[in-house]
């Protein structure tokens, strides 16, 4: 039981993520989380304005069901399958983040400095969350997929477009973490 309550090692987690992909393929579907953002646009009526959103969204109900399950899974994992142990980060990372003004690196899943409800009163934090969301929503659809669609499914099926996209993910991520985040915090 202890090994379930503690964080799981990478060599267990990675194959289990591949299992999610395999199960969806077995059910005749594809693993791709960002497609749901497009479906939500369509449900909200975006098809009236832009043709890209004109599709039978009910064919994507299965994927929205996966999203709903993922939300429940997140709840179950923290409520019943965790022992409150924080994330065992590299001490260098911890010091670095503390110097940037993050108080308890690794104590929670996301920093309070960006996500606590109190900090939302700060316009800067609100703007960061909105910009981050816009970049993710725009970028994934432009690239035709995100981590699940390109990095996991695309690379597992040895597709060159996905390799290009994943290289892009890393260029963007490296620029943000190494050059932009230090300017913001």
């Amino acid at each position, binding site marked *: 039981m202890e090994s379930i309550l503690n*964080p799981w090692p990478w060599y267990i987690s990675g194959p289990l993520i591949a299992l999610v992909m395999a199960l969806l393929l077995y*059910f005749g579907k594809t693993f791709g989380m960002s497609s749901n953002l497009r479906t939500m646009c369509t449900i909200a009526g975006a098809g009236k304005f832009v043709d890209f959103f004109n599709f039978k969204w009910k064919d994507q109900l299965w994927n929205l069901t996966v999203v709903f399950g993922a939300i429940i899974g997140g709840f179950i994992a923290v409520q019943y399958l965790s022992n409150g142990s924080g994330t065992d980060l590299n001490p260098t990372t911890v010091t670095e983040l503390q110097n940037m003004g993050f108080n308890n690196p690794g104590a929670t899943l996301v920093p309070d400095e960006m*996500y606590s409800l109190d900090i939302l009163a700060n316009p800067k934090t609100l703007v960061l969350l909105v910009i981050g*969301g816009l970049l993710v929503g725009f970028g994934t659809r432009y690239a035709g997929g995100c981590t699940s669609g390109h990095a996991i*499914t695309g690379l597992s099926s040895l597709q060159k477009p996905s390799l290009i996209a994943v290289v892009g993910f890393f260029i963007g991520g490296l620029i943000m973490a190494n050059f932009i985040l230090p300017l913001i915090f």
Partner: protein
Amino acid sequence: MKTLKFLLVGIFFGIVLVKSEAVSWYRIYEMFRFQSFHMYGIIGTAIASGITFLQISKKGIIKSIKGSDIFVPKKENGFVRYIIGGIIFGLGWALIGACPGPMYILLGTGVWSMLIVIAAAVLGTFIYGILKNKLPH
């Protein structure tokens, strides 16, 4: 039953991503600073297992639930959309520490502010839809 199996896969996915700490903002930061092997280990073993699964299924040993071959849709050829779209997504990923899967999962863990990120991501997708025909692909 048809719906239930997808709900269960989703629940499993959510649990795995929380327990693996792949939904941790800090783990994403650490990865992009090359200060930990953890995320590389997760992504690497996921891809290695995925390749193994697809190679075995190619031989026809594993069939889908309907009895047909396991099928992965082919991505269209291209370069600009993948590299530029990828970079834009990467910038957002490292900023908010979550990609589209973890956004929903973190909401389930009680990070309510994630609703703002999700709403912005839906808007970002809408903006792409508007500009799609003007962008190089």
